[in-house]
């Protein structure tokens, strides 16, 4: 026993570390990749193509194989580098475990496959010719058992084993000129889906899963456009001791679920659910020895994994400005995790986001159209749609303040509170004095009191009617704080931030807002009074003001898109990307600017840490790009704050170069019919200026969470490292000054 003690303690430590490595949902952090970075993520795509070209595929010519391999490798690599895919995380590990179970008897096949997770709320999974199988967090968030995942994986594994990707390519290549190509392709594609469904059942059956979960997998898929659960959204959800929201703002009806199993799939790549269910059922009966298992790895692990995906779902919705969806998911999850800091942060982010999109008249981005409204989740959409801007901005301030009060030390919630309050000041018709220092319920009680007072005053001595002091009565009568009659409940928003309007920080921020307004108005008046040349000078000065002082930055995944014969020249673009980075390094070295690069090119050195940093920054970029000019709050604010400290800079640079060569002879050249030799004199010009290269660069200030400057160069030179260097030198020469 003594000898066993060290072993036991080791096991205990290992077990503890497993437990510790699991997410605490009260302090949930977005999923990140873990472990060693797989080769799929850092090997050059052209090397992968080169490697695979050594094994000639049957039925494809050398040229076709090259096209095919370039398509699949560059396609999947773009997804792997999108910042959305993760590896070695708890979801990917779980998926891998389920796949291991399915392939217990096929170790060779198992070794060919890699399993990753993509952060997307679409319910889907896909496999590639290279043996990569990717499942979405959306899929994991919707399933109700491990068996559902197992069947979906079995389906994808079959796509891989039956080489459906290459067969599909071959079919498309051989049938290019076929009439009604879409229908033909649809039929072909559906055949392959049926095949994957059918053969997948074998793996599913072998792994001992229960047959009951087979057809219900299709239900999961069919209803996947709905939220993760169908819970009634109560009309008193926002009410608390300070907040009252009248019921008439909430949805006044239920929204029925309209989807049907037997929809028209004639132009779809997949058969409809009814047909898939029927086919699966007919095949399932041919198998015997069905198992009874729903979760080989236990309910706890399944529920944990699904909860991870559900928490991630909120983040993905916020990146895509789907605030109503995110709030409904939060509403569901907070029942189980009421003290989750993450849920509070995300809720605050949603309400801040809603406040700014409403102000920018873009609320339709964040809520469903009336046509799309289905299920219980639609009630949340309807509620947000019904809120007028002042109501929404005030409610946002209330909710964010409540979140902040729940976690008073949290820097992210503090910042969100500040921004939401500022958004309230900027909202339409905001007048601070209209906001009351009492909450709605108390106000109503006082109205009743005042009414009684008024009635009493008419019939008797008011000073005797109620147990109020003389001064109370005078104050009520003279200030009109509470008048007679009732309060219009649509003015509820004036009563929901009584604590805030007496808060020093809130009032100080309001003072800053007023100062800013005054300053802007003054600048505007000065600008109007300027002459044209003064305005030009003024604009130049403003530009140089906002771009100077760039001494250090992080360069994130610079990209090159080069076109050849109208298509993206994938190998050329990849090769140029490396030169692009070399250009950055040379220029920053020349100008003594400190630059750190995070990108595909150096992932072999930066590893998983570099990959995760890149993913966080990419998510922020996606969020900002969807926002256009809105004042974005980065969804991963806290994580980015930490990364910023690691790099020692708050400046982030994203850059893309696009190039094509398209000599265009002007239609006016037709006039040379009158003088043909002139055409010869003109002819070289379009070829000299046929290059179209565009370099875009933006600098993001991580403290402000916004793009602070950018540069855009359109030039007509062939794409090479030195022309890019010249532009980069020009940009950073300006910005460093």
């Amino acid at each position, binding site marked *: 026993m003594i000898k066993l003690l060290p072993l036991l303690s080791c096991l205990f430590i290992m077990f503890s570390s497993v437990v510790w490595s699991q997410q605490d949902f009260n302090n949930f952090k977005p999923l990140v990749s873990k472990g060693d970075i797989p080769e799929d993520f850092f090997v050059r795509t052209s090397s992968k193509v080169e490697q695979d070209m050594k094994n000639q595929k049957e039925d494809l010519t050398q040229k076709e194989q090259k096209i095919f391999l370039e398509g699949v490798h560059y396609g999947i690599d773009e997804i792997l580098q999108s910042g959305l895919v993760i590896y070695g995380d708890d979801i990917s590990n779980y998926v891998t475990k389920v796949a291991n179970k399915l392939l217990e008897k096929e170790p060779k096949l198992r070794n060919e496959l890699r399993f990753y997770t993509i952060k997307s709320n679409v319910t889907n999974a896909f496999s590639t010719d290279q043996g990569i199988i990717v499942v979405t967090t959306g899929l994991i968030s919707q399933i109700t058992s491990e068996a559902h995942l197992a069947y979906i994986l079995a389906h994808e594994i079959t796509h891989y084993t039956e080489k459906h990707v290459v067969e599909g390519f071959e079919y498309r290549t051989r049938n290019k000129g076929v009439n009604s190509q879409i229908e033909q392709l649809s039929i072909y594609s559906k055949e392959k889906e049926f095949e994957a469904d059918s053969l997948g059942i074998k793996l599913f059956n072998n792994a001992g899963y229960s047959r009951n979960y087979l057809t219900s997998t299709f239900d999961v898929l069919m209803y996947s456009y709905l939220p993760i659960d169908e819970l009634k959204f109560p009309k008193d959800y926002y009410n608390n001791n300070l907040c009252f929201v009248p019921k008439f703002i909430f949805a006044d009806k239920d929204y029925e679920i309209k989807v049907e199993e037997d929809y028209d799939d004639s132009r779809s790549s997949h058969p409809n659910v009814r047909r898939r269910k029927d086919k699966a059922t007919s095949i399932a009966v041919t198998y015997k020895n069905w198992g009874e298992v729903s979760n080989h790895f236990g309910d706890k692990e399944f529920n944990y994994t699904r909860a991870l995906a559900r928490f991630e779902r909120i983040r993905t919705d916020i990146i895509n400005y789907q605030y109503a969806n995110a709030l409904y998911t939060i509403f569901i999850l907070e029942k189980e995790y009421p003290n989750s800091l993450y849920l509070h942060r995300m809720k605050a982010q949603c309400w801040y986001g809603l406040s700014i999109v409403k102000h920018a008249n873009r609320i339709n981005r964040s809520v469903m159209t009336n046509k799309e409204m289905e299920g219980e989740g639609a009630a949340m959409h309807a509620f947000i749609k019904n809120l007028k801007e002042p109501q929404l901005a005030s409610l946002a301030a209330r909710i964010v303040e409540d979140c902040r009060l729940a976690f008073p030390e949290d820097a992210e919630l503090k910042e969100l509170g500040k921004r939401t309050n500022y958004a309230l000041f900027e909202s339409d018709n905001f007048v601070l004095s209209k906001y009351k220092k009492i909450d709605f319920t108390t106000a109503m009680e006082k109205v009743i009191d005042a009414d009684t007072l008024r009635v009493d005053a008419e019939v008797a001595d008011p000073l005797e009617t109620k147990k109020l002091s003389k001064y109370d009565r005078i104050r009520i009568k003279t200030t009109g704080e509470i008048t007679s009659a009732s309060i219009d409940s649509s003015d509820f928003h004036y009563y929901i931030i009584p604590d805030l309007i007496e808060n020093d920080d809130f009032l100080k921020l309001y003072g800053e807002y007023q100062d800013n307004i005054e300053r802007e108005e003054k600048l505007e008046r000065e600008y109007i009074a300027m002459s044209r040349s003064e305005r030009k000078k003024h604009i130049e000065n403003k530009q140089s003001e906002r771009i100077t002082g760039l001494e250090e930055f992080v360069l994130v995944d610079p990209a090159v898109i080069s076109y050849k014969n109208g298509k993206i020249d994938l190998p050329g673009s990849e090769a140029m990307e490396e030169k692009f980075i070399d250009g950055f390094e040379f220029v920053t070295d020349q100008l003594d600017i400190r630059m750190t690069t995070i990108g595909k090119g150096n992932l072999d050195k930066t590893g998983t840490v570099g990959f995760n940093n890149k993913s966080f920054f990419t998510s922020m970029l996606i969020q900002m790009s969807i926002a256009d000019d809105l004042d974005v709050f980065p969804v991963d604010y806290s994580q980015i704050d930490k990364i910023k400290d690691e790099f020692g800079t708050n400046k982030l640079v994203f850059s893309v170069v696009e190039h094509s060569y398209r000599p265009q002879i002007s239609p006016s050249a037709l006039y040379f019919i009158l003088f043909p030799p002139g055409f010869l004199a003109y002819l070289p010009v379009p070829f000299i200026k046929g290059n179209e290269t565009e370099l875009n660069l933006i600098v993001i200030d991580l403290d402000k969470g916004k793009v602070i400057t950018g540069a855009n*160069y359109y030039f007509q030179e062939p794409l090479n490292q030195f022309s890019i260097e010249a532009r980069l030198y020009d940009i950073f020469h300006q910005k460093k000054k």
Partner: protein
Amino acid sequence: MIFSTKKRSNKMNTVKSIFISLCLLGLSENSYAQNSGFIGKKNILSVDGRFFVPVFHNFGKNESKKYKANGEAFEPARNLLNSGINITVGRTLTNGMAFLIQGNYSRYKMYAPNYVYHKDINDYPNSFQINKSTFFQGQSMGIMPIIEFAGTGGILPIGISHQIGIGFYKNTMRNTNYLILAQSTSYSSSQTLDLFTTEDITNLDYLTIKSYSFMYKFNLRIPITRSLLLNVGMRYNINRTKPVPYQYDSATIDNHLIPQFNFRDMVAAAHLNNLVSLETGISFVF
């Protein structure tokens, strides 16, 4: 894929396309006002070859003058390509503007005049109509100050640019020996055809015409290293030769086989013929 949903889906945009849309926020800045040069290098030294294709006067005209000499025989020739060389030095003043000084040397074929003149033994000027002639070879040398403006996206000295210059040239004969078959037009002479070479009669070195030229060039400089640029451009010239009095009296002609005014016409015609040139070369930036 396991499923294709017809319902709401979040499109997975590629980071690149997203980035491009982000860049359309109008955050570009005007860089023409500053002078960053090519990676900080603002001085330029270029050597360019000039290639003229004399397209305008090459169709059906002067057929009797398109020969080259093969001993004392005429051999058909074509005026297909003339050439020259430019050496340019300059400095960028801003990213959008540069000042250049260019030295040009070019050679070109000219068509012989219709007549040549020579005094007879009585010292009387005689004219000879040229029936057949080899190409005459002209050359010009000059200097041209140039202002250069950056074109779309150009950061001088690289990229597309537009050059405007006014040059001053001296035009001379490159060779002095040309084969001519001429016929005297003098009533007093024997009216015979005569084959002669110009050097037998006179040295044509005396022929000098000044000209000036207004030039526009559409240019592209492509960096090939951090110090060298490849140049390619189309140059359009409008030339004007200095007027010469039109007289062919005894005193003017003297021993001048070709009077200055004829030479001026030859040069002017050649210049017109060489209105457009393709230029290419390399630039060293420092």
